[in-house]
């Protein structure tokens, strides 16, 4: 529809909800939320929530260039239109109150020629620069002060016709470029009265207009001189284009461009983002995308440009590096497809305009005529912390964090696990106590079963079990029937006593019953009917002893029945081989599903590991698995790499939550589990123990008293030391122990006396960096006041190696 026609989009610098599209017509649009637009008004949707209504429109024939004034008093956008005759007129597209009397004003050059560009200054809002074609005896850039003229208009109000025919037309404030051509002009908005111009197809000129009588000019020669514009946030940074090249310049070193960016197609428009530093957007001909150029400063100049806050904390770390950073800036490019929602437009973009104030917002016009309101979104970075903290970067240099109540609502397993860990879940002395803490049916059943199974083993009901918590499968492995029935009462004690009496042998009736069974809502009722039907068929030949031939699969397959009941039923009614088969099959299914109730069958055995592994993978609840392992597994089971992986993972979680007590208790249970069965020779026993070794002989300074060594060693020590039961030298080689860095006394082992561990205050404590040591209390006192090591010759900042105290 509009292809081939030059189009442009311009936001009003003052009215943040208004923009114009300038093509064959100049149309003023107003943006509003679609909800707020009155029903009957026609509007163009520009984003899912916003629509643009046409406020006014007029023909643009003869108009060569447009700019919107930044005069804030104007109730409607004030446009400057440059015509082919060189005339510039001011207009508002809509008739409104005109406080400054600017509407309708005209500025005419002495010699008519094409007007190429108009530009309003945004700092001195009455300044209007006009660029024109060459005339041999006139200047090509005219600077008008529109407010100056108004006085004359006001004075001439009475003689209405005089404004045109007035003998003295308004004179421009300044004129530049005698007999030159100016292709475009633009103001540098961040510094006062600096005008940039592209001229004669080969120059970029910067005019300093602070002193109009003595205009400073800075210029450079380049083919890529068109569309010159300055970064509104960085006054020295200037961009220009030409053919398929974009150049970025530094006005302070104007000889050659900082950057020359090549593009595949001719660049038709470039604009600096008014809200974000160093961001340039360009549009190539017939392209569906806009290209963002993020200019990366690698020279240290940018520090000045940032006006870095001279905060106390600032930059003590970077010593001035005099390394030559000759690399200069570079650029990161990113292509955007402005589009609505998830269906980006496939039509080429013909024009775009940055919004003057809203962050990274722009309007783009496609060749289809569609208008798109688009916000260039910055990359949002997200991160999770160990304390359930989710943080992400919001716009404008903000970080956002979610509050605690949020995590409670999501009820993720991590939150649940942390809550359980805080309540000593899994660490209670009696296994069943953990069941209530779990607050979950499956886990509660698990702990109850483990407690029950343990008590059965302890009571001697289940004998010869290789595991401390055997399951049904372990128990029935022996296969003797008495044992089996015993188990029904012990392990499956809550089986309801159900007695079934058969009243009739009417076969049809029973078959009807069996057929109707699936419709019953209660699984137990259904099972009952299946049982009736099955046992009836078995009983039919009047051989009551052949009961086991009955086909109970329907009953056993009633999976809504509790597993305990099904297993108990199987134990009572199935033959040995069938029972084994049934148990194996059920067990495999449950292990495959990771159904915790299956622990009834597996117990804490290798099959149990497989089951818990599935549970971990399905739910992420490594905590329960690790705790069950720590509490119930034998040393042999603990060696399984899967179990080690649970334990390590859970330890890591506890570390991260800083739940040291829970972690310590876990390790104690694991060591106990490994030690109990593995005996003293087990590699786990003692693996986690820490001992202090003598630096001279390498033997533990604590492992001396009692059985290993005769008392002789002590007898040779001076009596007071022996009496104090505190060793100041190595009991093996009798070389002195290290001295405390604070009190200079030898560190005692504290455990030499054999009467339990020493008080914490007497513990060996040392810095892992400088390896200087001392009594724990002395060091605590010392580091309250100091950060440096107490040993006089050492400069180690021991205490700062830890993260800072939070309180």
């Amino acid at each position, binding site marked *: 529809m509009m292809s081939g026609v030059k189009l442009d989009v311009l936001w009003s610098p003052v009215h943040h909800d208004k923009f114009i599209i300038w093509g064959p017509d100049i149309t003023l649009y107003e943006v509003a939320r679609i909800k707020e637009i009155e029903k009957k008004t026609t509007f163009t949707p520009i984003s899912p929530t916003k629509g643009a209504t046409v406020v006014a429109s007029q023909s643009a024939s003869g108009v060569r260039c447009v700019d919107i004034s930044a005069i804030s008093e104007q109730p409607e956008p004030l446009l400057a239109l440059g015509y082919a005759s060189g005339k510039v007129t001011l207009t508002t597209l809509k008739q409104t109150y005109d406080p400054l009397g600017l509407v309708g004003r005209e500025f005419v050059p002495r010699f008519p020629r094409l007007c190429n560009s108009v530009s309003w200054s945004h700092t001195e809002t009455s300044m209007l620069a006009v660029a024109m074609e060459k005339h041999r005896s006139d200047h090509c850039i005219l600077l008008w002060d529109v407010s100056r003229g108004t006085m004359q208009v006001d004075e001439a109000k009475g003689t209405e016709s005089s404004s045109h025919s007035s003998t003295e037309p308004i004179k421009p404030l300044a004129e530049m470029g005698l007999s030159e051509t100016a292709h475009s002009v633009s103001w540098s908005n961040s510094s006062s009265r600096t005008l940039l111009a592209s001229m004669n197809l080969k120059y970029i000129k910067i005019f300093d207009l602070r002193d109009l009588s003595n205009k400073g000019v800075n210029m450079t020669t380049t083919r890529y001189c068109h569309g010159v514009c300055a970064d509104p946030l960085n006054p020295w940074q200037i961009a220009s284009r030409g053919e398929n090249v974009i150049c970025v310049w530094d006005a302070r070193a104007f000889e050659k461009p900082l950057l020359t960016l090549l593009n595949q197609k001719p660049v038709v428009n470039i604009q600096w983002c008014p809200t974000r530093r160093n961001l340039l957007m360009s549009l190539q001909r017939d392209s569906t995308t806009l290209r963002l150029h993020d200019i990366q400063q690698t020279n240290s100049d940018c520090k000045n440009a940032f006006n870095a806050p001279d905060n106390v904390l600032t930059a003590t770390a970077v010593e001035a590096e005099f390394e030559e950073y000759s690399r200069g800036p570079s650029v990161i490019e990113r292509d955007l497809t402005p589009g609505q929602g998830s269906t980006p437009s496939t039509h080429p973009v013909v024009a775009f305009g940055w919004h003057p104030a809203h962050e990274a917002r722009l309007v783009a016009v496609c060749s289809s005529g569609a208008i798109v309101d688009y916000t260039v979104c910055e990359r949002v970075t997200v*991160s999770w912390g160990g304390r359930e903290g989710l943080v992400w970067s919001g716009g404008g240099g903000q*970080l956002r964090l979610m509050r605690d109540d949020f995590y409670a609502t999501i009820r993720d397993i991590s939150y649940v696990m942390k809550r359980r860990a805080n309540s000593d879940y899994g660490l209670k002395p009696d296994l069943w106590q953990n069941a209530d803490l779990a607050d979950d049916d499956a886990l509660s059943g698990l702990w109850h079963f483990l407690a029950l199974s343990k008590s059965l083993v302890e009571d001697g009901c289940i004998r010869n079990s290789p595991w401390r918590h055997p399951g049904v499968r372990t128990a029935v492995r022996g296969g003797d029937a008495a044992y089996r029935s015993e188990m029904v009462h012990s392990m499956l004690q809550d089986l309801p006593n159900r007695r079934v009496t058969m009243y009739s042998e009417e076969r049809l009736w029973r078959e009807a019953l069996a057929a109707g069974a699936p419709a019953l809502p209660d699984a137990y009722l259904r099972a009952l009917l299946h049982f009736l039907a099955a046992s009836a068929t078995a009983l039919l030949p009047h051989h009551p002893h052949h009961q086991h031939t009955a086909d109970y699969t329907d009953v056993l397959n009633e999976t809504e029945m509790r597993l305990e009941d099904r297993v108990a039923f199987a134990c009572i009614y199935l033959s040995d081989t069938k029972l084994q088969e049934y148990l194996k099959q059920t067990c495999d299914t449950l292990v495959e599903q990771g159904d915790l109730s299956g622990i009834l069958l597996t117990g804490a055995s290798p099959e149990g590991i497989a089951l818990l592994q599935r549970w971990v993978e399905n739910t992420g609840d490594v905590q329960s698995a690790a705790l069950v392992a720590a509490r119930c597994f034998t040393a042999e089971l603990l060696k399984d790499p899967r179990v080690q992986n649970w334990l390590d993972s859970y330890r890591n979680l506890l570390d991260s939550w800083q739940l040291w007590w829970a972690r310590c208790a876990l390790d104690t249970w694991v060591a106990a589990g490994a030690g109990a069965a593995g005996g003293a020779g087990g590699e786990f026993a003692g693996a986690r123990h820490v001992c202090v070794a003598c630096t001279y002989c390498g033997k533990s300074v604590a492992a001396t008293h009692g059985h290993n060594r005769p008392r002789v060693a002590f007898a040779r020590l001076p009596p007071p030391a022996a009496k104090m039961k505190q060793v100041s030298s190595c009991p093996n080689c009798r070389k002195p122990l290290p001295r405390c860095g604070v009190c200079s006394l030898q560190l005692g082992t504290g455990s030499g006396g054999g009467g339990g561990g020493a008080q914490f205050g007497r513990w060996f404590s040392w810095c892992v960096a400088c390896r200087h040591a001392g009594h724990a209390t002395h060091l605590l006192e010392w580091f309250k006041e100091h950060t440096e090591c107490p040993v006089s010759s050492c400069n180690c900042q021991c205490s700062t190696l830890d993260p800072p105290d939070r309180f």
Partner: protein
Amino acid sequence: MGELTATNMFESQTIFADHKDLIHDVAYDFYGERMATCSSDQYVKIWDSDGKGGWKLTGSWKAHHGSVWKVTWAHPEFGQVIATCSFDRTAAIWEEVGDTAASGSEKGLRTWLKRSNLVDSRTSVTDVKFGPKHLGLLLVTCSADGIIRIYEAPDVMNLAQWTLQHEIPTKVSVSCLSWNPSLSRVVNPPMLAVGSDEPNTTNAAANVQTDKATTCNGKVFIYEYSDVSRRWTRTECISWVQEPVNDLAFAPNLGRSFHLLAVATKDVRIIKIEPIPESGAVGAVGAVGNGGCGSRFKCEVVAAFEEHSSCVWRVAWNLTGTLLASSGDDTCVRLWKMQYLNQWKCVAVLKNERVGEDSPPSGRVHTTYMRLAPMANPAIMHRH
């Protein structure tokens, strides 16, 4: 759509980070008590939690001569150490030391010293990550020219000395990498996943170049270290991901027998990587469903979400690997939660309130609201 009630509306806390430019990365330390941010303004800032929900700025310095892309914390057993990487082609190791100028009472102010500057890369260093702590003090960097470098500090007390252990050329531009955090060294050798942001326009050409990997034009590669050959080798190329990758992250392993890898590309993908037992690898015929490249793993896409309209930027796992956060082109942060049996669903959308569009910039509210999706049907989750 779920009704907006008081219970499913949350306010987020806002920290005004005062970075002068876009924040590229936020990283928590191991305990979640400290936070490091880095930005295009070339600064790195450190934030400490006061334990009551507040965050205090305790360090801020100009770390590089270019945009700082990523920041990462070392495990606390190595001290208070972070690593940063930048557009200025370097990666740096920083250690916190007490402010020597401050007397005993003013211990609040901390100084970060640059302990080492890794200058091997010829191009922008796009990602940096410390290795899992059971491997020692390892650091891996990747750069835009596609070289992965693995450094090791042989003496963990001396952070000034880093030796370049391995240099792995990938031949494609690498944008991100992630260590496999699995703790069991027995089962899993050290493993890295790297993602490439190589655009697909040169797809045909790239295929010709990578003669050895002609079978696969995926963008995610798995590298593993072999103790026998003492080398890192590419053991897998995940052909499910064909679009440029912006970010990827291994989930904390948490006792699973498989690994979960989240990939941010055109969509959010969760890929399950299951090591095939050695016996299965010998009988290579058993290698099913892994796209025909290698037989070390069985890879499977367990979830792919396209809700972030066109592009996903970052993915992050929570501590247990059961919640995934992703951010994308729609400027939303979405949370994906593992349901029973590895089903993933969107549980929350966190939207940055657009600044200034509807309200004047001055009266802008620093809040964000999230809405829980009705669990039953996440498909009709709307954008806000």
